[in-house]
């Protein structure tokens, strides 16, 4: 049994270089100047918080760690206050290391190829338009809570074969795991148990009535020896698909709309040149990458000349890597037609996001449908934009006024 601890408040950060904390309100509001300060100090910085944690600050250091599965394990992928015992089959393949990683990953890849995503696209366009129908007449909207939030959750529910109407249930589990769970072990355990029970019931239903969805696909999948997967593996992968596919893309769509609301020139250009949207999506993914991952140092090594010691966690900040000016000229500017863009928003190395083709399709469709129907919008000066804390960054409140400014 894991140790259960009460959530603790973190003291505010005064020395970012030696005491960084990605849950600090300053980081949540505006992390970019912090990353710049850390990068100027060293390619790898360290904090005593989270029982000891490093952070690579350059693209190169992030790449080195992502490609080094010998010294850096994925058995823990969220930097938290506690280090409870690692569950077997927590969420394969994201929590797997070689050699078990590859077969677990290959199992999930075929349903997420670009061609598979094309089949899902008409449903996505319909979902976006149904959501827009719900608020367009109001003249204002919370684009995070009423639009971007519901696009990925309905897409993955559709693929898994679970009711799209259970969306709020899934969103609450994810909030408990990815945000509250950093400091509150009870919340995390409760959400994991509830998710497992939910999926067990759906698996049970499919034993007598198989369906054409990802749950049946995983139930019927065979491992390398031709044996069905253990139930814990099926449940772990289902939990992963549900967790990983939702607030990540919700954040990416929200940040993109936030940028376009504040940047009329980019908005007008995308309306005039819709063919540019896929390139713009890549740049928005670079500039506002939502996902920060983690590794655990399992053997001492050196990264960009800095020694790293076993027993520490690593905050693997793809978002900070994507702001490294050595890799990206004008890294702090959104260059909406950036031609050269090796951004790491979906990770680097063997753990490249399984859902990257889904996320890209959702972002393109969400922006296309929005711009098509709502060419003019801006931040509501009477409202407040708020951002999520910790592992996934994106707007959670995004009040807009719709239509031309008077």
């Amino acid at each position, binding site marked *: 049994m894991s140790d259960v601890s009460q959530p603790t408040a973190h003291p505010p950060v005064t020395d970012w270089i030696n005491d960084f904390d990605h849950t600090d309100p300053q980081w949540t509001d505006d992390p970019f100047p912090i990353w710049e300060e850390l990068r100027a100090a060293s390619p790898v910085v360290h904090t005593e918080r989270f029982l000891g944690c490093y952070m690579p600050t350059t693209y190169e250091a992030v790449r080195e760690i992502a490609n080094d599965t010998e010294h850096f394990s994925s058995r823990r992928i969220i930097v938290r206050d506690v280090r409870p015992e690692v569950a077997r089959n927590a969420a394969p393949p994201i929590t797997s290391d070689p050699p078990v990683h590859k077969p677990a990953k*290959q199992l999930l*890849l*075929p349903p*997420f*190829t*670009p*061609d598979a995503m094309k089949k899902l696209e008409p449903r996505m366009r319909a979902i976006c338009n149904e959501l827009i129908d719900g608020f367009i007449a109001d003249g204002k909207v919370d684009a995070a809570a009423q639009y971007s939030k519901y696009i990925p959750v309905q897409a993955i529910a559709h693929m898994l074969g679970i009711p799209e109407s259970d969306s709020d249930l899934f969103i609450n589990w994810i909030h408990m795991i990815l945000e509250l769970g950093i400091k509150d072990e009870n919340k995390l355990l409760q959400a994991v148990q509830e998710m497992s029970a939910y999926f067990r019931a759906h698996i049970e239903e499919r034993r007598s009535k198989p369906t054409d969805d990802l749950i049946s696909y995983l139930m019927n999948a065979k491992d390398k020896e031709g044996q069905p997967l253990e139930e814990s593996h099926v449940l772990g992968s289902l939990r992963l698909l549900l967790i990983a596919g939702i607030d990540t893309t919700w954040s990416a769509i929200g940040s993109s709309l936030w940028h376009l609301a504040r940047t009329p020139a980019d908005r007008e250009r995308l309306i005039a040149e819709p063919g540019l949207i*896929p390139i713009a999506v*890549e740049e928005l993914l670079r500039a506002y990458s939502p996902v920060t991952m983690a590794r655990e140092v399992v053997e001492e090594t050196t990264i960009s000349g800095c020694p790293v010691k076993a027993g520490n966690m690593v905050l693997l900040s793809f978002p900070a890597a994507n702001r490294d000016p050595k890799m990206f000229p004008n890294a702090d500017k959104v260059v909406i037609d950036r*031609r*050269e*863009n*090796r*951004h*790491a928003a*979906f990770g*680097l*190395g*063997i753990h*490249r996001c399984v859902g*990257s*083709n889904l996320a*890209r399709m959702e972002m393109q469709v969400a922006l296309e449908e929005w711009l098509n129907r709502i060419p003019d919008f801006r931040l509501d000066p009477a409202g407040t934009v708020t951002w999520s804390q910790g592992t996934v960054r994106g707007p959670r409140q995004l009040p807009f006024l719709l239509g031309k400014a008077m």
Partner: protein
Amino acid sequence: MAGRLRVHVDPDKCQGHARCKALAPELFELDEYGNAHEAGDGTVPPGLEDKAWLAKSNCPEIAIDVIEE
């Protein structure tokens, strides 16, 4: 005049980001897992040279070579 170009994907480096397929669909193909390889022998038909360089410069894994022959 530049000579003929050929593209090549290093299968050990490719992780299936599929940027090459999005930017230069004529020059790359994806397998059932979404990992990329060059179409045919990788020869770049005249007029698609820009797309070959674009695919190379957008591969996050630095898995694509453009060879000038």
